[in-house]
């Protein structure tokens, strides 16, 4: 518990430092959104977390599907990571839209990057809805693992959309086809720190969400056991009374 609190304190410190650097230290971008560029220190880490979260969901789902590695924990981890990923994807879309308005002159454009990202968001919303469908734990686990692997097919499409199609959205600043990093100085440092801070926050959220899922699953199991025990007791009483 103390370790988790220490990790949270470190995460909040990193997030605070990111905010200070992003809002007061880094320069604005002349003639291209000016101070709106500060939104990219949120937008890019959110995009990274979306990839990471859905990647972990896919790996955990795969491990759940393989009989040799199957364990309920993989299913719970997949669900926890997907939920956190959906939140960061929503924030990526909102912040991207806030950046697009002053820079592109529009809140939204149906270009390849934005459209495939919106599809990814709705695919994983559907995945989360599927997790709530009434089924046994094993049935749900298998069904959701297959859905997670299908949904993950959209992630590389989102990433490479700016390379495969002509888009309003710019090419990757760091991970572009030529691997030509187009950022340096305080902007590069702030972006790296922001990515690290958001990754730590993702880790903290997943740990908490995973523990909550375990407790909820355990509670459902205990409630079921109690109901069965009660039923057995009631049946025994009924058998005793006529005799």
């Amino acid at each position: 518990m103390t370790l988790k609190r220490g990790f949270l304190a470190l995460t909040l410190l990193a997030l605070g430092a990111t905010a200070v650097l992003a809002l007061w230290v880094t320069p604005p971008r002349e003639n291209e959104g000016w101070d709106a560029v500060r939104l990219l220190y949120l937008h890019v880490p959110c995009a990274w977390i979306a990839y990471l979260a859905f990647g972990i969901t896919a790996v955990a789902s795969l491990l759940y599907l393989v009989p040799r590695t199957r364990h309920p924990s993989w299913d719970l981890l997949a669900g926890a990571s997907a939920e956190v990923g959906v939140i960061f994807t929503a924030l990526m879309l909102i912040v991207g839209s806030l950046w697009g308005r002053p820079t592109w002159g529009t809140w939204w454009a149906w270009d390849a990057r934005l459209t495939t990202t919106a599809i990814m968001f709705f695919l994983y919303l559907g995945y989360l809805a599927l997790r709530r469908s009434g089924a046994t734990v094993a049935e749900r686990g298998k069904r959701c693992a297959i859905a997670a692997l299908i949904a993950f097919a959209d992630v590389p499409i989102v990433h490479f959309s700016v390379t495969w199609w002509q888009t309003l959205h710019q090419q990757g600043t760091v991970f572009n086809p030529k691997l030509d990093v187009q950022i340096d100085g305080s902007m590069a440092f702030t972006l790296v720190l922001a990515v690290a801070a958001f990754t730590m926050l993702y880790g903290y959220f997943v740990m908490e969400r995973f523990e909550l899922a375990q407790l909820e699953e355990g509670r459902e199991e205990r409630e079921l056991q109690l109901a069965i025990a009660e039923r057995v007791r009631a049946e025994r009483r009924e058998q005793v009374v006529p005799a």
Partner: protein
Amino acid sequence: MSHNWNYVVAGYAIVTASLAGYGVWLRVKLRRARRSLPEESGD
């Protein structure tokens, strides 16, 4: 001259509020779930 600070403030406020809200929701749910453990096991 507008430097688009209104968009920046909106973005940082939305992200902070959303992530803090989710964090608080998780902590509350976790605390309740942990608290319900001894009650049930005592039955």
